């Protein structure tokens, strides 16, 4: 437990220190490079913003109309049996389909339960170890016009399911609930 917390605190500073050290060793203008990279980040965020507005709004409609609650209530008997947080079900499914839609649902959970609640921590970890499988498959295979993707989906879903189950177990272990 302490090792994991230690890891969480150490990894970012260490990565940053290593990058700076390496860059300085190569005698490149590290600060200029940093600023240039920040500009790239700005561009990325500005590109994300329109989709985030669209999808957070759509999630807002689903939330305020009570639709999300109805879905959670409907699946909760099954979820309780396997110990899965019912409110995380829409996000867990949407995570495989669209990154921005998943972000909208994630932020909805943060807002409603706080990121420091059990479900808030669980969805944070789950988002780290899963991928937008359906989107990625369609983009990559479309680029080479392959329509028969064979066992790709099965393999990817198994990996993502393993990650989701692992997230739940690790969160239980670390934070209880």
């Amino acid at each position: 437990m302490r090792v994991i917390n230690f890891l969480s605190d150490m990894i970012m500073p260490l990565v940053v220190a290593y990058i700076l050290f390496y860059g300085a060793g190569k005698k490149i203008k590290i600060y200029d490079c940093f600023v240039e990279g920040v500009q790239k980040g700005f561009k990325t965020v500005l590109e994300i913003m329109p989709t985030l507005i669209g999808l957070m709004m759509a999630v807002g409609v689903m939330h305020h109309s009570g639709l999300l609650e109805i879905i959670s209530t409907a699946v909760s008997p099954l979820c309780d049996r396997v110990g899965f947080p019912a409110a995380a079900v829409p996000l867990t499914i949407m995570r495989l389909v669209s990154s921005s839609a998943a972000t909208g649902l994630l932020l909805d959970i943060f807002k409603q339960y706080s990121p420091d609640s059990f479900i808030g921590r669980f969805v944070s970890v789950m988002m780290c170890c899963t991928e937008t499988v359906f989107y990625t498959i369609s983009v990559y295979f479309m680029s080479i016009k392959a329509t028969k993707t064979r066992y790709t989906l099965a393999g990817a879903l198994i990996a993502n399911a393993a990650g989701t189950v692992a997230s739940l177990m690790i969160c239980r272990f670390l934070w209880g609930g």
Partner: protein
Amino acid sequence: MLNFLWAGFILLGILTAAFTGKMHAVTVGMAESAKEAVSVCITMLGVLSMWTGFMNIADKSGLTEKMTKAMLPLLKRLFPDIPKDDKAFEYIGSNITANILGLGWAATPAGIYAMQALDRLNRFRDEASDMMCDFMIFNMSSLQIISINIIAYRSRYNSANPSEIIGAGLIATAVSTAASVIFIFLRRAAVGGKRK
């Protein structure tokens, strides 16, 4: 697909609101959510851009290239059917490095080049080869070591410790990636010599 999803979300929500009598809440919620998206992006501007700044140093100093090269022996074991000197390894390497560092926009182009290189080795036109499927499964097992977006979102919603999930995320990511590697090797063993 997203077009239908998006419209479906909103229409289903409005329909539900009509039955639950929450039309007013939806009206207010719609505007609130759109406003909130912008405030989330402002937090993101700071946190994500800081990260891309550091990553640009890694890129310009040749560190990402070094990482890609260091990964090659491992990749050759994971994808033994790709000819040793094929360009595909270079693209797969940079795709995976970009994924590990959380540089989604750099990962996608490299991944598409990798698929095109694998396509040149493929005997079938519209059917994916084993190499493609294996690469895709590994790629989608999530490889990112630090999910900077999640940390930014957590800090926007006032988490007391936004980065506390890094360690847990790392372990969960290792599990999903291990599952993908096990799947790849088991399937390969199951079909034996019959490869596409």
